[in-house]
Structures are given as C-alpha cells and as structure tokens.
C-alpha cells in the first residue's frame, strides 16, 4: 500500500505528529509503517536518508557507528530490531528545512522495534522532526526505538520528537548521543496524548570541548497514563554546557521527571529545571533532579517546582470575560509554551498548533 492509499485517520495522526505529506518545507522524508518502509526520500543535496539496513549495506563505515554510542556508556541494546532510519548530514552542509521521519504502528498488538542512526558531520547543521504514532485500531501495541546520534566537531542538530499514542500503547525509546567539540545537540520531546506507559532516559555525552546540549520536554499525563521521562548528561570536557528543561502537567496521570547532570571535567556549566502542574488531587508528579561532580570549578544548578493553577490568574482572565474553563485552558497552554524549544520558524507554528490542540481540552 502506498502513502496515498493510507486511510484518513492514519494520515491525520501523522499530520498531528508533524508529518507533512506535501513535503513543502522538508529536506528529506522517511516513513515506516509497522516493519515496512513506505517512503524514503532526500530532497536536498548533502542529506542522505536511508532505511538503516540499507545504509549498513551501502556504506561499510556505518558499522563503525552502529551500536557504538551504547558501547560508549557500557549499555546493552536490543539487537532484534527491524527498520529505522539512517540520517547523515554531510560535512559543511547546512539544512534549514527540517528532515521528517515518522514511525507508525498499524497492526494490533504489534511490537515495533527500530534502530535509528543519525550522523551530523563536521560543521553540518540540521533539524529533524520525528513523529511516532499509532492507528486508532492498533490496541496493545508497543514501540521500542533505539536511537544513536553522533554530532561531530562544530555540528548542530535540533531534534524534535512528537509522540501521539493511545491508552494501550507501551513505549520505550532508548537514546544515546555523542557530541564532539563545539557541537550542539538540542532535543525536544513532546508527549501530550494519552498513552499507557512511556519510559525513556536518553543519555548525552559531551565529549569535546565547548560541546553543548539542551534537552526539553513538554509532557501531559492523562488519567491512567504513566510517563517516566528522564535524561542524563555527562559533561566530559571543559567548557561544555547542558540545560535540561521539563514541563509536565498531570491530569490524573503519573509523571516522573528525572534529570541527572554529571560533570567529569572542571569548567562546565549545567542547569536542570523541572516544573509540574497538578490539575487535581489525583495523579502524581515526581521530580527527581540530580547534580553530580568531583570538581570544584563547576557551575551546576537545578530548580524544581510543582503546583496548581493559580486561582488569581484564573479569576483575572475571568474578569476579561473568559469562562473558568477557558481561563484554565489558556493558562495550561501558556505553561506548555513552545518557546522553550528553540524551534526554527517553519516548525514553530506547526508544533504550536499541535500543542494548542491538545491543551484546548476542558478541565
């Protein structure tokens, strides 16, 4: 079945996780349904996009990267994967339109297991938007995504991942990123729809001097959803910097926000911020920030705050003619403001539309 023959509801789901069927403002496209690759296309020079199995066959050097990020942190990874994307932005290539990569689960009780590999070569720059979603009728499915990122010297990657699952989905992304000298890795994770369980704990190693990372998450936990979202950054070289920002709303669901910043070098700067909003007395938000170092000359900080929607803010908006429900919705949307994501303009309005849609719900 081709992309054109996809049913409307699947197409809509893909649009809601940022997929652009017209590929108007896109640099490349990858679309996988269950285990089958539906679409792979690079639209600009300097960007190579392939199914991972094909990339391993086409380039012998890809083996040198495959699984290597996990080995670096002495972690095992699932080898029984099928599919996944290989994205390579070549040396000195700067791509301003996003590369889109989507993974859809169609079958019921399907276990999708993919391995993705992203290489941002020296002084290359790019944006990736990746959406993972599930068909309305695919109950009790699971998604396991192994992702490895290599950002070489002076490389820049802004990676935005949007998830839209359903209340029976089990999701387990496993990510390791290695960032070289003066490289930048920005990762945004957005999960605002119901899901049974998401557990993820990406690890970023800043191995070269002046490497930087910023990890942002916007999370909304619905009744019976369980989100255990964390991240670890290891600052291995001097003048590296990390910022981890999480915003979570619990609407009777559970959220754990973990963050671990570990400096293995002096002269590093790192900050961790977790903010939670409880919409009722049901559900749970648990913020666990950790800072770790053995060096004197570091600048590491964290702040965590959990609370409810401020009554004064609601009443203020009500005095401007908004109903209480509208006022709460506006405040929640404000809390989930996408300005923290450092998105390029072309993605900003899309991501804003996606977050606004879900936070329009009534509380």
């Amino acid at each position, binding site marked *: 079945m081709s992309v054109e023959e996809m049913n409307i509801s699947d197409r809509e789901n893909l649009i809601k996780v940022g997929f652009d069927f017209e590929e108007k403002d896109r640099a490349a496209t990858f679309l996988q349904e269950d285990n089958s690759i539906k679409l792979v296309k690079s639209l600009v020079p300097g960007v190579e996009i392939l199914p991972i199995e094909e990339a391993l066959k086409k380039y012998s050097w890809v083996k040198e990267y495959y699984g290597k990020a996990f080995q670096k942190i002495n972690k095992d990874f699932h080898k029984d994967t099928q599919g996944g994307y290989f994205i390579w932005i070549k040396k000195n290539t700067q791509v301003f339109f996003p590369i889109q990569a989507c993974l859809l689960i169609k079958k019921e009780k399907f276990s999708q297991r993919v391995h993705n590999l992203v290489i941002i070569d020296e002084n290359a720059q790019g944006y990736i938007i990746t959406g993972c979603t599930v068909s309305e009728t695919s109950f009790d499915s699971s998604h396991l995504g192994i992702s490895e990122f290599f950002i070489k010297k002076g490389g820049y990657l802004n990676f935005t991942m949007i998830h839209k699952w359903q209340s029976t989905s089990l999701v387990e992304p496993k990510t390791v990123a290695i960032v070289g000298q003066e490289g930048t890795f920005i990762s945004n994770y957005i999960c605002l729809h119901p899901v049974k369980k998401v557990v993820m704990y990406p690890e970023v190693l800043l191995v070269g001097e002046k490497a930087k990372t910023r990890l942002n998450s916007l999370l909304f936990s619905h009744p019976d959803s369980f989100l255990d979202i964390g991240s670890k950054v290891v600052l291995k070289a001097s003048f590296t910097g990390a910022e981890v920002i999480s915003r979570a709303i619990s609407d009777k669901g559970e959220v754990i926000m973990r963050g671990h910043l570990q400096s293995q070098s002096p002269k590093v700067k790192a900050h961790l911020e977790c903010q939670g909003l409880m919409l009722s007395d049901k559900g749970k938000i648990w913020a666990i920030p950790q800072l770790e170092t053995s060096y004197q000359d570091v600048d590491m900080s964290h702040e965590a705050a959990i609370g409810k929607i*401020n*009554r*004064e*803010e609601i*009443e*203020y*908006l*009500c*005095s*401007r*003619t*908004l*109903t*209480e429900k*509208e*006022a709460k919705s*506006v*405040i929640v*949307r*404000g*809390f*989930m*403001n996408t*300005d923290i994501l450092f998105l390029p303009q072309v993605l900003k309005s899309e991501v804003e539309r996606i977050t606004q849609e879900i936070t329009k719900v009534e509380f």
Partner: protein
Amino acid sequence: MKREILRIENLTVKVSSKEILKNINLSIEEETTLILFGPNGSGKSTLIHAIMGFSGYKIVEGDIFFKGKSIKNLSIDERARLGIGVMFQRPPKIKGVSLKDIAYFLSSQEEEIEELIQHLNLKSLFHRDLNYDFSGGELKRSELFQVILQKPKLLLLDEPESGVDIENISIMGGILSNYLKNNCVSSLIITHTGYILDYVEAEKGCVMIDGEIVCMGHPQEIFESIKSSGYERCRKCQWKK
C-alpha cells in the same frame, strides 16, 4: 433623569473572616463617574474585588445591583460579560500568556487592536509573557488596553495613575476620557493622587475610611480638602452622608 447602572446596598464584606467593608451604600448613574478617595488600607480595592465577585471577598450582608438586577450570585465572567470591566492595580503575572492572546480573545478587529497598541505604545509588550518585568507604567497601559477592548459599560479603575510618569498619565488620561465619553460608559475610579481628575469629568466623589463611606460630595472639592488637610478632616466631614 439618568438611570442607575450600579447600586450597592448595605454591603458588608469579609476577607479571611475580617470585616473590611461595613454597610456600604453607593450608586452610579449611567454615563457618570464616581471618584473614590481614601487612605491606604481603607478598603477601596476590596470594594472593586467584591463588585467583580473575586473569591476571598465574602458578602456577609447587602447586595450589588447592575442595571437593576442583583449580581451577587453571578460568576466573575458572567459579571464581566454583563458589562463590568476592571483595570487592576496589581494584575497577576501569567507565564506563556501574552497581551496578544488576551487581545484576540476580546476583539476580532485587527484594526482596533493595532490602533490601540500604537496609541498606548504597547508594541514591545504585545508578545511578552503578561506582566512579567512590566514597569509600573507598562502595567497600567496594558490594563487600560485590555479593558477598552473588553468594551464594558461600567469601568472600575483601581488607581489608574499610580506608578505612571506624567507623560504617560496624559496619554492614558486622554484615551480613558475619550473612551468614557464616546461610548457613554460609567466609571468608578479609585485615586490617590487625584491626577486623573485633570482628564476625567467626574460628577461625584466619596471618601472611604476604615471600610466605611464617610463623605460624599463634589470630587474636586473633596480632593482640595484632602490636599490641604489630609483625611483627618474627612473623618469629621460636614458633607457626611
């Protein structure tokens, strides 16, 4: 004879079980302005919050009528939609919500919004988080902007000129005065400095001390008396109710 737009009858209000307003009786007619004077902590802002129905301001006795109907049991937004608007003295900060968001909620007329932004010099604040790092003058201009877009029939202004420099008072005063006149709007204005009297034609004035209205009269005369003798004279006022 002008009709009453707001009538407050024997109003007693408690805040955290403390009686703040005691047996207040007031009325404002259509297209008229009432100036409310009073020292700090006398209960002036409490009156505005009680009229609007904010939580924590408990009416223990009396009633509030808007255009002849009791509004005591209406929610804040219902009162706002009937035509009561407030310009707050200390509006809250709201993260991720901009003046632009509220503007487009209150009006769909792009031109009207644009024009008011220009007049009130709000361009640089339009996209910023509401009230975050706004200066005193910016807060007031932002409040006036919102409340004008809201198009109320009764405007409650809580110290519109406090923290505003002379130049901005003149801009705001001009816009406020035009709005009141051109739209036949009534207002209740709380003022400390009285600067606003240079711009707004007010028919009535009153003084609140310790939660009670102690004096009613011509606003300019009351203001002159306060300027010369402070609020002490108001306590023994010859015009006392």
